[in-house]
């Protein structure tokens, strides 16, 4: 069994580290670590306690790095390591693996070690960067490695173990392995951040100790903390205020939560071993040829719409292509998805107006994330590139047809609200919704083209959706939750221009290929 675990770990880890994206990832994380420690007179600052930040000694840099890691790595790293089992499945090596004597325990343990090794590489690269940063800024050049390593061991390593195990759970459960899982994890992460802020472990524990250090110097403890990026408020007066912090007092630190997280990771790992189907599910999910009663009912329900759409589009080659692209986007989802979309469309016509923009429309658009995420790289992922790109219309018209199909899907799931806006003559809201749909679809295409994976759009869209429609950040409010604010900044124009720029960016490689 030991050999099987090691073989699985070695093969998976070697495959990942030989991928060019591995180096890019490490570089990006190093850059993130670099920009997290701005100079004293920089235009932005990151961690501050009551308007103070520590002198860049080993204690402050090492512990602040742990703050960054424990806050952001669970989000970034989960998406980086998720998919190792799906990779074996999709590369069809799963059948070779399943035919060997390797047990579920050995295979999952090997994958877990590989996941964790990747995360340790990322952590190591950031740690090295942080050490260099301390020497570079030279506010205090005395290196104390224990200040770098202990916070990582106490807070970050348990978190990474948890992420490595969670990724395997998401990989092992069919419905969590795709886009739904990606969106769900985002909310799990946001929930965990809230949980962290309420607990006395992790970020809170570090910040409280930093505040204690500040109080010891006689500065009033006001409980104002910042761990993200923000403007250097004190820059006007010259620079942010600094103090010398001596580091965590580990004698007063409660280590039990860290052990609990490690134990939870092992529990989740065991759960992943139970849930993993040992590749009984084939690479492409084969649907039953025979239709269920619900299938037939849904087909009957959509039939008039289908006929109408067919009749409207059949005359012109382009409109027909748009219809075929819509079909490609909408075919094959679970029945629950169609029912939920229909329910939300009907609800848009019936519920209170504030609920339409505030809840129903955002929910309907979030449902579309998995429908839109294959745009821009569907051909590559389905291995149909050779068939599609050897045809005469693939390069220009299909690109536009794909774009319009995506927009139509978003407008269809918003059709109840659109009807309502039209009846109440809210023309700006209609324009905003249309321009927002265009921008979102263009974003899906460009991210698909550039990153060649649906995962990027699923994460970016969920993030934008969280900041824009959910938190009413006006420049990202592509649904128009706050129409007045959007009208004030002329969001329609912003989204339209963004659409044009994104489309141009996405079209370039395809047009280059066409010639």
């Amino acid at each position, binding site marked *: 069994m030991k050999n099987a675990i090691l073989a699985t770990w070695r093969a998976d880890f070697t495959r990942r580290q030989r991928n060019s994206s591995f180096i890019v990832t490490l570089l990006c994380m190093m850059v993130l670590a670099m920009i997290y420690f701005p100079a004293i007179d920089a235009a932005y600052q990151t961690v501050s306690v009551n308007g103070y930040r520590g002198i860049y000694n080993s204690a402050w840099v090492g512990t602040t790095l742990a703050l960054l890691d424990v806050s952001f790595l669970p989000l970034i790293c989960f998406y980086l390591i998720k998919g190792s089992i799906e990779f074996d499945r999709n590369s069809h090596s799963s059948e070779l693996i399943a035919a060997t004597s390797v047990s579920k325990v050995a295979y999952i343990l090997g994958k877990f070690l590989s996941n964790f090794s990747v995360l340790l590489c990322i952590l190591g690269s950031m740690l090295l960067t942080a050490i260099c940063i301390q020497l570079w800024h030279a506010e205090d050049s005395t290196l104390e490695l224990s200040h770098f390593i202990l916070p990582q061991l106490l807070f970050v390593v348990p978190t990474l173990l948890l992420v490595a195990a969670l990724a395997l759970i998401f990989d092992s459960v069919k419905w969590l392995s795709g886009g739904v899982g990606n969106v769900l994890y985002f909310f799990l992460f946001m929930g965990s951040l809230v949980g962290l802020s309420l607990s006395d472990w992790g970020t809170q524990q570090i910040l409280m100790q930093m505040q204690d250090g500040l109080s010891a110097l006689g500065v009033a403890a006001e409980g104002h903390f910042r761990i993200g990026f923000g403007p250097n408020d004190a820059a006007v007066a010259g620079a942010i205020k600094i103090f010398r912090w001596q580091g965590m007092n580990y004698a007063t630190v409660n280590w039990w939560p860290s052990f609990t997280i490690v134990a939870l990771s092992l529990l989740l790992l065991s759960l992943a071993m139970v849930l993993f189907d040992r590749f009984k599910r084939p690479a*492409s*999910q*084969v*649907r*039953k*040829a025979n239709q269920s009663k619900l299938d037939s009912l849904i087909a009957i329900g959509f039939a008039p719409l289908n006929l109408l759409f067919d009749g409207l589009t*059949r005359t012109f*080659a382009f409109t*027909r*292509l748009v219809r*075929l692209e819509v*079909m*490609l986007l909408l*075919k*094959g989802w679970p029945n629950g998805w169609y029912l939920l979309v229909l329910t939300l469309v009907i609800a848009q016509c019936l519920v209170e107006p504030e609920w339409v923009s505030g809840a129903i429309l955002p929910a309907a658009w979030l449902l579309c994330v998995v429908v839109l995420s294959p745009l821009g790289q569907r051909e590559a992922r*389905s*291995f*149909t*590139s*050779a*068939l*599609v*790109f*050897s*045809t*005469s*219309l*693939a390069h220009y018209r*299909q690109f536009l047809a794909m774009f319009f199909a995506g927009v139509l899907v978003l407008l269809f799931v918003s059709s109840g609200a659109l009807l309502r806006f039209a009846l109440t003559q809210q023309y700006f809201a209609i324009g905003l919704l249309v321009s927002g749909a265009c921008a979102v679809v263009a974003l899906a295409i460009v991210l698909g083209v550039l990153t060649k994976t649906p995962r990027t759009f699923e994460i970016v869209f969920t993030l934008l959706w969280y900041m824009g429609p959910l938190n009413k950040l006006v420049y990202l409010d592509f649904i128009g939750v706050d129409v007045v604010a959007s009208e004030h900044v002329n969001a329609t124009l912003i989204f339209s221009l963004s659409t044009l720029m994104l489309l141009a960016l996405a079209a370039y490689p395809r047009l280059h290929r*066409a*010639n």
Partner: protein
Amino acid sequence: MQLDIQHLQQNYAQAKPALNDINLTLHSGIIGLLGPNGAGKSSLMRILATLSQPSAGNVLWNGVDVLRKPAVLRRELGYLPQSFGVYDNLSAWEFLHYLAGLKGLTNQQAKTKINELLHMLNLADVAKQPLGSFSGGMKQRVGIAQALLNDPKLLIVDEPTVGLDPQERARFRDLLSDMSGDRIIILSTHIVSDVESIADNIAMLREGELLAYAKPESLLAGLRHAVWQCTVPKVQVAAMAQQFCISQSVRQADGMQLRIVSHESPCAGAKNIPPTLEDVFLYYCQSSQSESVTHAQEVAA
């Protein structure tokens, strides 16, 4: 109708080019592209299908440079790659309808052609089923159908009979044979029996070099006195294999009956027999580059 391939060169990262100065002029009919794995067949086909650009050289379709104006060829092209995917959630009919749309067929043309092809390729009964439930052979037939949707003037099929049962293979060969009158069909394979009965011309590729381009009968004539049959004890087979190109070996009561391609008699009692295309293929695959070139020059002469 004419496809001119001029000084085509394809270099990848490795030192040896995938295609080295290929020159061919193709007219209507079936051209069998034969060569061992790694000969450069798929690289050549991808360039002809406008999917990749060569490092050097030209491809002219009826005088038009398709490397500069690929759209001219794409309108008249049918292409079946060696490996391809399908959209599992679509039915065969929907998938073909989608590709018909991309190929610019009108709604009515698409419907007529798809129904015709589904019947021709024995897929009519499963046309409404999702492609995800199809076997490998059925998907391959869908691939063949999509290549024929626009009634192509240039049909490029790369290993088209992979996964097909013998009956379907024969049916596909007949289909190509019937279609070959007014179009160029390039059929790449290393299954010699797929081309020997239907190919009008055969191009032999090895390690990126075009070794021969001739009619099958000319290639066979070149080996007329070079195929031998003899029976040897089993212990001698390994030594014979080191020395000669063995195209077939059959176990017999008194030893092994070998079919050997050699310009000289391989052993005492060896009987000269008529060559097959399989012998020609193995001869080109196994003999040295200089021998192959000499033979090709003889064939050309």
